[in-house]
């Protein structure tokens, strides 16, 4: 199971990666959309956890670009806004939106559920 975490808040994303690895989930980190695309070109990720608002490339743009190379990849969006951005609804996908600050257990449950919905 390959996970990539993308957020411009470097400390936050590093800490999250570390905590996930403590729980047995290995995750790569990228600090921007471009970096994420570079890493995705080398590794087939199963799931991406994206911040919606990032300088340069937004979470949604990144999603579109990732899907070009990895059509089966699943997404979990993380947002600093309490509510989900109106634009996200227009996407009509099954993506899951989580609010910051995150509960680590909820995140792990969500990742598991997303990768194996039958469980």
């Amino acid at each position, binding site marked *: 199971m390959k996970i990539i975490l993308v957020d411009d808040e470097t*400390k*936050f994303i590093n*800490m999250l990666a*570390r*905590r996930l690895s403590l729980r047995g989930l290995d995750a790569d980190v990228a600090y921007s959309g471009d970096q994420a695309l570079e890493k995705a070109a080398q590794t087939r990720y199963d799931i991406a956890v994206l911040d919606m608002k*990032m300088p340069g490339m937004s979470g949604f743009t990144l999603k579109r670009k990732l899907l070009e190379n990895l059509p089966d990849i699943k997404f979990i969006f993380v947002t600093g*806004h*309490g509510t989900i951005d109106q634009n996200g609804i227009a996407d009509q996908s099954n993506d899951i939106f989580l609010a*910051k600050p995150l509960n*680590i257990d909820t995140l792990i449950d969500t990742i598991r559920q997303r990768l194996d919905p039958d469980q």
Partner: protein
Amino acid sequence: MNRQPLIIRKQGWLEFLFHRPNVHLASFQTISNYPRIWIISIMILAVTSLAPLVFTTVINHQLIQKSVDSELVLQTDRVTSNAKRSMRFFLEERLNALQFVVNELPYYSLIDNEHLDKILSNLKLGFGGFTDLSIIDEDGSQIAYAGPFNLEGKNYKNQSWFIQSIEKDNFISEVFTGYRDIPHIIIAVRSETAYGRHFLLRATLDTQRLMSMLNSYKTNVHTDIFLINRTGVLQTPSTTYGKIFTPAPLKVPPYSDTTHVIRPEHPGKNGFIMGYSYIATEAVTTPFILMVHKKKSDVMGTWLNLGKTFNWIIGVCCLVMMVIITLVSTFMVNQLYLADQAKAETMLKMEQSQQLACIGQLSAGIAHEINNPLALINETAGYLKDLYQYPDEHRSDQETSELLDDILEAVSRCGTITSQLLGFVRQFDVQISSVNVEKLITGILSFHKKETEYKGIHVTTAISPNVPAIKTDRGKLQQILLNLINNAFQAIEANGCLDIKVSYLPPNKVSIEISDTGCGIPEENLKRIHEPFFSTKKDKMGTGLGLSITYGLVKKLQGTVRVESSEGIGTIFTVTLPVRNRKEGNA
């Protein structure tokens, strides 16, 4: 501030005239000068409703005057012509009688006094009006006389009437007193003796009879009938112009043997109408001019009274209408004022709630800003806890200390943001103070920092160094700039530009220009953007109040807003504000 009394209050009738001016409301009112609107409305109503009434009254009055005038002319003409015919007949009849006498009787029987007496009595009997008869030879000596006066043997050689009559076959004199001191008229007929010498048969006529004949034509007291000679001397007494033989103050009318009516030269209260005719018999002209004088005012009395009554009625009608017009105008203008007032009050309330909405909008951005450090704190603290929950994990004091530092740093990041917000919000309450525009703009932009980063918006601020601090209501200026900058951010797509230019326009103005490369405003909407509830963001959250409140606020700060926009290229809002607010105490 206690706004309650503004909203719940008695709605007086003349509220718009006697209201206490309120600068807070004034900037939201559509019309500023209600008394002027009131007066204009009264005047327009009065003119349109009273003018036709007055016009018809005047026309009507003139028509009546005209018809009365022509009626009067007709009446005068009739009286004059009747009196003239009688007068002519009177003289002609007597002249013909004398003619008959001289033609019928031989000279010798005429100079017989006894015979002459008989003729006189016969003439008196047959015609009346004769006083005496005499025969005068061509030298002027009276040869025979019949009558009550002792005039026998008189010589008339030098009398003007004799000189005139001896030259003609027939003669009628003016009225004169002569030797006997009684006004009389002479009628003379010339004839010849058997020896070819001329002689006159002269009769004097009693003017009394003539006068009573003329007086019989006086239909009422307003009519005066009299005779004048050709030099304007009265030949019979006149009730208007005085005694007999006094010159009448009249212009002698031009010769005409038919009846004429002269219209008065100065019509008015003392106006009159004058009918006249020169009297001429078939055989000889006479020196008489018959005059008929009719006083207009008295004859027209009935009509004038009717007119007066009519005028009174019209006057009362006009008065009643004016009262109604005034009441209706007052009511309507007052309703207009109250509606405008209610609108202004609503706008004022809206301004306050928009201020909150404005802060709300900011808070959303700020919540996001705070959420990021919070998420970091969450993860770092969670990791610290993990270190103790997963005991096989290696942990060093140094790492723990670093993690705690991270938490503290994130907490201070949050603190900065909240204190920034609090400082900003608190300043909304400040009234007039000295405001540094640059600091204000920088403060507002700092709340949008993350948004500019995400959207890749290029923000430039150009503030010329000579811009002075302006004395104004800081809270209001903040709200204005927040509204305009928020609008700009909403309009700008990714990778757009926001330029803010502040410049000093000496001596007393500062202009703030906010230009964006957003979607622009279509031309047909440009004129309407300041209207309340005008919004093109129907699908989104726009209330349509933002810009209209901004306009109201700028007006309150005695500034102006100018908008230039081209669709697809961008919009420039230019706010010009006075450096010193003129009514500092009130704003």
